């Protein structure tokens, strides 16, 4: 298994070989018709399998899929914003070796392009980017914990996003523009994920043994809460309101508690959670 610093030049080369221009990669139709068909694979829609879903007619399901994809693109966009900022702060540091900084230039370039394409889709067709509701309060960190937490957040947004990208990039039922955005995102994310997994494993190995039981427990509690909170982004009351579903907050609450949705979240998180358990960041699979 290559280390992150060994992996970086290969990823840099691949990024250069697959360089793409966000401004010419897509033909943006003038408008999209929300009730004309699927924009997200129905099985990925947040309330799929619930009583609320069963009660919807086909055109409302299409409409919901439109706002769900706009929400998905919105929170991935917002997830990429601190990611870019954090990666920038790590470039050209004494402890960031040259090949890693060189690859980070591509990582950031690609993330910036993803934000442009997600922003373009949301603003052009939904007329907005669904705002995030996050406020960050300072918290205490053990040695190395801030670094580990940062790369955990990177991995969560990318792994969960990639689960959706993989399903939608080849789904012939959904709008071809949405499929293409998912495909483009997945191709770049595959490199980011390979790099992130390796780097996080190395940083974890360096620090986690030094933490006492209290620090380890505090971190694991935070990581499980962060995963749950990230899943919460998929169940947006504003999406339900835009689809004209009544009591959006109640719809969200019921879906979050529904066994079908819970089973889906655990299936979609399995690869990520297995990684966290294998690296020792978690000691067991959480209920999500």
């Amino acid at each position, binding site marked *: 298994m290559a280390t992150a610093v060994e992996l970086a030049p290969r990823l840099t080369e691949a990024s250069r070989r697959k360089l793409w221009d966000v401004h010419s990669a897509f033909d943006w139709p003038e408008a999209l018709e929300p009730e004309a068909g699927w924009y997200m694979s129905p099985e990925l829609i947040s309330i799929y399998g619930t009583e609320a879903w069963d009660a919807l007619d086909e055109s409302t399901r299409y409409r919901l899929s439109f706002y769900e994809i706009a929400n998905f693109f919105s929170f991935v966009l917002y997830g990429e914003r601190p990611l870019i900022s954090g990666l920038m702060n790590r470039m050209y540091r004494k402890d960031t070796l040259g090949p890693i900084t060189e690859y980070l230039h591509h990582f950031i370039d690609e993330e910036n392009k993803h934000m442009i394409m997600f922003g373009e889709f949301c603003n052009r067709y939904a007329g907005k980017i669904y*705002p*995030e*509701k*996050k*406020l*960050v*309060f300072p*918290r205490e960190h053990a040695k190395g914990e801030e670094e580990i937490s940062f790369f955990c957040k990177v991995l969560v947004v990318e792994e969960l996003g990639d689960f959706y990208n993989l399903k939608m990039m080849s789904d012939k039922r959904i709008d071809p523009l949405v499929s293409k955005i998912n495909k483009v995102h997945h191709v770049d994310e595959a490199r980011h994920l390979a790099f992130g997994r390796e780097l996080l494993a190395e940083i974890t190995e360096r620090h986690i043994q030094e933490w006492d039981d209290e620090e380890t427990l505090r971190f694991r509690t*935070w990581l499980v*809460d*962060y995963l*749950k*909170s990230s899943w*919460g982004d998929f169940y947006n*009351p*504003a999406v339900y309101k835009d689809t004209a579903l009544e009591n*959006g*907050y*109640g719809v*969200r609450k019921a879906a979050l508690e529904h066994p079908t949705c819970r089973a889906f979240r655990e299936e979609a998180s399995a690869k990520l959670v297995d990684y966290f358990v294998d690296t020792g960041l978690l000691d067991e699979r959480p209920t999500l």
Partner: protein
Amino acid sequence: MDDKQIREQLRMWILDRSGASPDRLARDDEPILDDGLLSSLDIVEFILFIESLREEEVDIEAIEPEVFNSIDTLMAAFFPDAPVAAGAAG
């Protein structure tokens, strides 16, 4: 909902989420964040709950973290026009 009912809803949500005993929020000026009753991650969920009570979205970019200090500051920031319950004034 009147001022008193909203305060009670907020109190119940916080206690339920945190698992704290009711005496922990006996007064509406008791700190919510300082003693770790709610974390940053809880706040996302809490804002959605506040939106459901207000029936209006919260513009997160327009608020300061200090509004989450206590039930009193939450009321002032998010429910400034809540009617006072009958018989509660004076």
